[in-house]
């Protein structure tokens, strides 16, 4: 009887020892770190569908439409802290937006842009780019967490108003100028 008890005790002890052996079988390696560094750079790009517009002027007329509209596509990826994207149109001079090179000029106040569904507006404001009183804010986009990466389009049509001031007496000639479109995030 005593021998049987001793045998059971030995078997239980062996079972415990075996289970302990299996429990300790899990082995881990050391943890090896990999440092990750990912950069998403800020960007702001603006592309135009065309880079030239012609006008056939009619003396004294307030309606001298451009030959083609131009669509500006502005795309951006912005960092936190940016709150707005603005799109501007401007000339470098308000008095000589277009000139014949002989002292005869068309001022920026006679140059109109109709952007998307907005009414046509003359370039008479001082904006962040260009000459004083020679610009126009075309669009303003508030930036939130939902549009830090986004794009917008501004479909512009153009008109030259020759009906005001001395412009009805504008000499016949070819008038050239450069209208700039530029975006700014701030």
């Amino acid at each position, binding site marked *: 009887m005593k021998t049987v008890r001793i045998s059971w005790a030995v078997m239980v002890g062996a079972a415990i020892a075996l289970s302990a052996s299996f429990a300790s*079988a899990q*082995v881990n*390696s050391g943890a090896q770190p990999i440092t*990750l560094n990912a*950069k*998403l750079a800020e960007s702001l790009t603006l592309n135009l569908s065309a880079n030239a517009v012609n006008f056939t002027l009619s003396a004294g007329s307030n309606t001298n439409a451009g030959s083609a509209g131009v669509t500006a596509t502005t795309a951006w990826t912005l960092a936190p802290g940016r709150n707005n994207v603005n799109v501007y149109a401007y000339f470098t001079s308000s008095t000589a937006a277009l000139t014949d090179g002989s002292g005869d000029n068309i001022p920026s106040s006679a140059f109109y842009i109709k952007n998307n569904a907005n009414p046509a507006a003359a370039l008479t404001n001082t904006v962040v780019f260009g000459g004083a009183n020679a610009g126009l804010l075309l669009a303003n986009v508030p930036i939130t967490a939902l549009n830090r990466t986004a794009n917008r389009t501004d479909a512009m049509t153009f008109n030259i108003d020759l009906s005001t001031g001395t412009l009805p007496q504008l000499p016949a000639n070819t008038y050239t100028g450069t209208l700039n479109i530029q975006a700014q995030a701030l």
Partner: protein
Amino acid sequence: MRMLAKFGTMGALLLAAILFSAPCRAQVLNSGASPITLNAILQDSITLTLSSHAVNFTLVAGSANNPGSTGITATTTWVMKPSVNSLNLYAFFSSSTAALSDGAGHNIPSADFQISDNGGAFAPLTNTVAFGGANAGLQVSSVPIRGYNKTGTNSDVMTFNINLAPLPNLAAGVYTGTLTIQAQAF
């Protein structure tokens, strides 16, 4: 008389034999056997080494393909006990929501971090594994341990990608994080 002489000679010879044989028998002397217990331990072990500890990413907003600048090879070497059946290699982050972060509350989750092992398909770190945060891990590989590979080595060539398609409005910035590689045998 002769008989007496013979007996005398024989007796002398016998005595000499006894005298010579006694010292010979006394030279064989054995000590008791002294045992030496031998205990040799072949410790189970796993070592993991990485070919590099840093990966850079140049991110493109909204793009699904932003590969890491370099692949990394993890070499796992092991010596296992008979009770071990598998050796698994894991990759993990400590957090599933902020695998990489700009430190300003903008994060890249582990679900958008992908690893390709040995040319296989890219897989995101979305599982809960033996190490790291919940839903922030990936079992990179598993090696069955049998009698023939109780001691062995395995190489995992890992390449990395960040998928920004689900994060189109991620703010521009520098995002950093730590990916950890670790092996476990059980």
